[in-house]
Each structure stands twice: as structure tokens, then as C-alpha cells.
């Protein structure tokens, strides 16, 4: 069960970090409708995170909050994409477009996981992620094919996020083992459908696929991100100030 739990951390930490990043936008969005939309997406991701961390924690006798608030940076298993800074709205949308496309492909396959809990989370999340993808795609079109400035910013946003795409599709021993047992999806097998889904959106938005290579690293061990410790420092500050307290 520990390997499944670790897999649940992979999935859950991604969702948690993204929720944390998106949560910052609420009250700062470029239009009030977007305060609502980004809050929606943040809550969906936080919902996935809570479910997955609770599930992971059951293997170790820990709660979702134990895992979210009392693990140190090098114990998290999130990918670097979701840890990237919000930047401007174009950069946030670029991150959303990439991650929602990836999550959509992933959850579409995970609904058939041999692990019932993971299959159930995926089934629930899939509908939400379809909305996230639609939201990101719509904004990619508007920004890419909007004004000269928005085109430039959206293109830059894609450029700044693209180095972290490769990592999403990196396999490791745990994933290979779980995939063989029908529990996980081997990330590398999602890349083709990811490309096929995201490329037409980028093209329709009159944007180009960024000409930038993947960033070295990609082992979900946090060995290559300067952002993670900043995110956790803020997220955990109050919980750690009162260890053992309930809220």
C-alpha cells in the first residue's frame, strides 16, 4: 500500500501546490469573473489534493493536514510546473493550459485504475478538469489572438512554462511497477495525446510551440526547484506555529 500511497502523493501534491498558487489570485484577478473562475479551479484542485492526501495518509496513519503542513520541502512529490510562480495572467494561463491538458489525459486513463479509490478520484476529477482545460484554452485563444501585447505575453508565458513539460511525462521505477499492476498510468504513454491535444489550441491561438528544451531534473524529489520552499514557508507558517493545535 505504501507504493500506492506514494503515487497518491505524486497526484495530490501536484494538486495542492497548484491550488496554493491559484489561491493567491483570488481578489487580484484581471476581471471579477476571473476571481470566481480561478477560485473555482483552485477549490477543485484543493479538493483532489485533500482526497488524495487523505488516501495516502491512511497508509502511514497520517491525516491530510499532517502531510500538507508537517512535511518538509524534500518530502513533497510535486512536479515543478505547478510550483512555478504565477507571473502575469498569461503565465498563469500557460501553466493552466499545460497542466489541465496533462491532467485531462491522465485522469481519462486513471478512471480505469485497478485501485478503486484512485479510479474514483479520477472519475470525479475528470469532469472538473474538462472545465479547467476549457477555461485555459479559451483564454489562450483570447490572449494569443487578442492584442499585440497579449500575444507577446501569452507567448512568453508558454516559453517560461515549457521547460517543465518534459518532467510531467517522465517515468520512474515506482510508476513502472504500478503501471504494470494497472494502478498507475505510465506518464510517457500520455505524451503523444498531450501533444495532439495542446498543439492545435496553441496554433489556433496564433501562437508557437516554444523552442525551449526541458529543464534537467524531473524526479519529483524537489531537488531542482527554488520555489517549493517559498510556497511551503507561506502555506505552513501558521500550522507550524501551533503544532498539535486544531482549527
Amino acid at each position, binding site marked *: 500500500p505504501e507504493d500506492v500511497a506514494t503515487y497518491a502523493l505524486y497526484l495530490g501534491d501536484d494538486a495542492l501546490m497548484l*491550488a496554493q498558487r491559484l489561491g493567491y489570485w483570488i*481578489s487580484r484577478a484581471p476581471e*471579477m469573473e476571473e*476571481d470566481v473562475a480561478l477560485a473555482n479551479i483552485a477549490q477543485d484542485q484543493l479538493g483532489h489534493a485533500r482526497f488524495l492526501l487523505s488516501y495516502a495518509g491512511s497508509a502511514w496513519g497520517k491525516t491530510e493536514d499532517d502531510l500538507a503542513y508537517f512535511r518538509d520541502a524534500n518530502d513533497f512529490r510535486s512536479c515543478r510546473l505547478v510550483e512555478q510562480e504565477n507571473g502575469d*495572467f498569461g503565465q498563469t494561463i500557460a501553466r493552466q493550459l499545460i497542466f489541465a491538458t496533462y491532467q485531462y489525459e491522465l485522469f481519462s486513463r486513471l478512471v480505469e485504475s485497478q485501485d478503486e479509490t484512485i479510479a474514483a478520484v479520477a472519475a470525479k476529477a475528470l469532469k472538473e478538469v474538462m472545465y479547467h482545460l476549457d477555461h485555459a484554452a479559451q483564454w489562450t485563444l*483570447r490572449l494569443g489572438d487578442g492584442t499585440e501585447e*497579449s500575444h507577446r505575453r501569452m507567448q512568453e508565458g508558454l516559453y517560461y512554462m515549457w521547460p517543465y513539460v518534459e518532467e510531467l511525462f517522465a517515468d520512474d521505477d515506482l510508476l513502472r511497477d504500478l503501471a504494470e499492476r494497472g494502478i498507475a498510468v505510465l506518464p510517457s504513454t500520455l505524451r503523444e495525446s498531450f501533444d495532439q491535444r495542446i498543439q492545435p489550441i496553441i496554433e489556433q491561438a496564433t501562437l508557437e510551440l516554444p523552442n525551449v528544451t526541458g529543464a534537467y531534473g524531473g524526479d519529483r524529489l524537489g531537488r531542482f526547484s527554488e520555489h517549493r520552499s517559498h510556497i511551503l514557508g507561506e502555506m505552513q507558517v501558521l500550522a507550524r506555529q501551533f503544532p498539535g493545535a486544531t*482549527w
Partner: protein
Amino acid sequence: RAGQERFDQIIAEDSRIEPSDWMPEGYRKTLVRQMSQHAHSEIIGMQPEANWITRAPSLKRKMILMAKVQDEAGHGLYLYSATETLGVPRDELVRQLLDGEAKYSSIFNYPAMTWADVGAIGWLVDGAAIQNQVPLCRASFAPYGRAMVRICKEESFHQRQGWEILYELSNGTPEQKAMAQDAVNRFYGPALQMFGPPDDDSPNSQQSMAWNIKRFSNDELRQRFVDMIVPQAQALGLTLPDPDLKWNEERGHYDFGELDWGEFMSVIKGKGPCNVQRMQRRREAHENGAWVREAASAYAAKQASRQQDAADTHLIGA
């Protein structure tokens, strides 16, 4: 004038005015002012609580807090829409806010410094808002009333959630309880002032009551609020910071001490701890978002012209 007569009759019958109905200019103006202030308050009111989203001490509380701040954005949007039915577009209302011409509730010029403040805002500020808003569900202007019905449902959740935050703190460690008490100490007075100045000093109230916009006087609403929160505070095990607060058997109400109206007036006039900060944040969000809104318009215009081209082509082809 037939319009005036019909309007007076609707008011007399306590029926509802629709946007298409004739209405006196003063009535329209009063409503635009009040409804847009209310909308602005929801939007500015997101800030103190949003300050704690990234630091909420449990995932459950983070979830609830995000939902709450989201609801506030939603309320702002309903209320701007309802105000637009009176002929003033949202852009113009937002401009008035950003230029400092329009006001919003002074309570949001107080800072949310600790996690307990999030609880106190939910319990006291949303609690006071509900007292104000429940009667507004029957406001004579129909779109306002309808918006209020929807909003009040959500606000009562919020108040409950705020109370729960304080309950957990009050039953937690001594530091947590002290944090809760401190928050209540700071928000109690300003929350009571949310109902506006004492009736003697509230010249506009009477006209609003005659128009069936307002149903109860400021002091009546304040009394109801105090009567509601005293037992809630007892259930929390927290003290309300008013030595004069006590049950008056004769009146069947709680008596309470004089509020600091000097402070109230000075906060309204811009001297609050966060007036400038709140406006700066709102302006920055607006300015940083300008290129996004322009892009959305430009894209929409392109799409419309593409559809027109397609339609033209179709006509020529036909």
C-alpha cells in the same frame, strides 16, 4: 404625472418596482448609490480574508475560505448586475470606486492581522451584514430584493463558518483562545458601526424607509444584532469588549455602551488603517488586468467580424 402616481401606489401597497417602471430620480439615485456601495463592499471585502488564503492552517479551512471569498466576488457581480438595471453600466460604477468617488463599507478598512480575524469577520461582520440584508430582501426595488435573497442564503453560511473558526480557537490552546479574544475585541465596535450612525444623525434613513428600501432604523438593526451575538459570544466562551453590556429586563433587550463615533467618522473620511492599501490593491488588480480585458475585447471583435465575413461569404455564395 401618471408615473408618480403609479409609483406611489406600488410603494403604498408594498409591492415591487421593476426596472422598466417609472421611478422618481431621487429613488433611482438612492438605489444606485446604495446598491453600488454594497457591490463595492463585497469586492473590497474580499481583501482582508484573501490575505489568509495562502496561510489557512488546515486544508479544510483553506477550502472554506476560498469558497467564501469567491462568494463575495459573486455577490459583487450580482449586485453590479442589479445596479445596471438602473441604467448605470458596471464600468462606470467601477470607475467611481477606483477614483474614490464611491464609498464601500468602512469595516473593510480594518486589517485582518491574524487567523482569528478571519473568524471574527465571518461571525461579526457577516453577522451584521445579515441583519442589514434580510430586510432588504423585501426592498421595493425588485432586482435588489432578488439579489439579496440569493446573497443572504450564502451569508448565513459564512457567519456560521466564522463562528466555528472562533469556536475551535476558543476551545484550543491558550494562545489560540487569546488570539480569538483579541480579534473579537478589535472587530466588535466596528461591526456595531456597520449599521450606520445613530438614528438622530442619519438624515437619509427616513426617505429610504418611506420608499420601502430600508425597513428598520440603524439603531433597531444594531439592537437586534447585539441581542443576537451576546448568547453566541457566551457559547464561544469569549467576552464582548463592552463593560456596559447587560440584559435589560424591562426593555427585553441588551443595553450596550456608547460607540466611538469619532473613530467611525474618521475611518469614513479615509483615516482607517487600510483605506489607502485597499484602494491600491484594487487599482493594481484593475490596472494589471487591463491588457487582459483589452485582449478579450479585441478577440471578441475579431470573432464577430469573422462571423460577419462568414455570413457575407454565405450571402454572396447564395
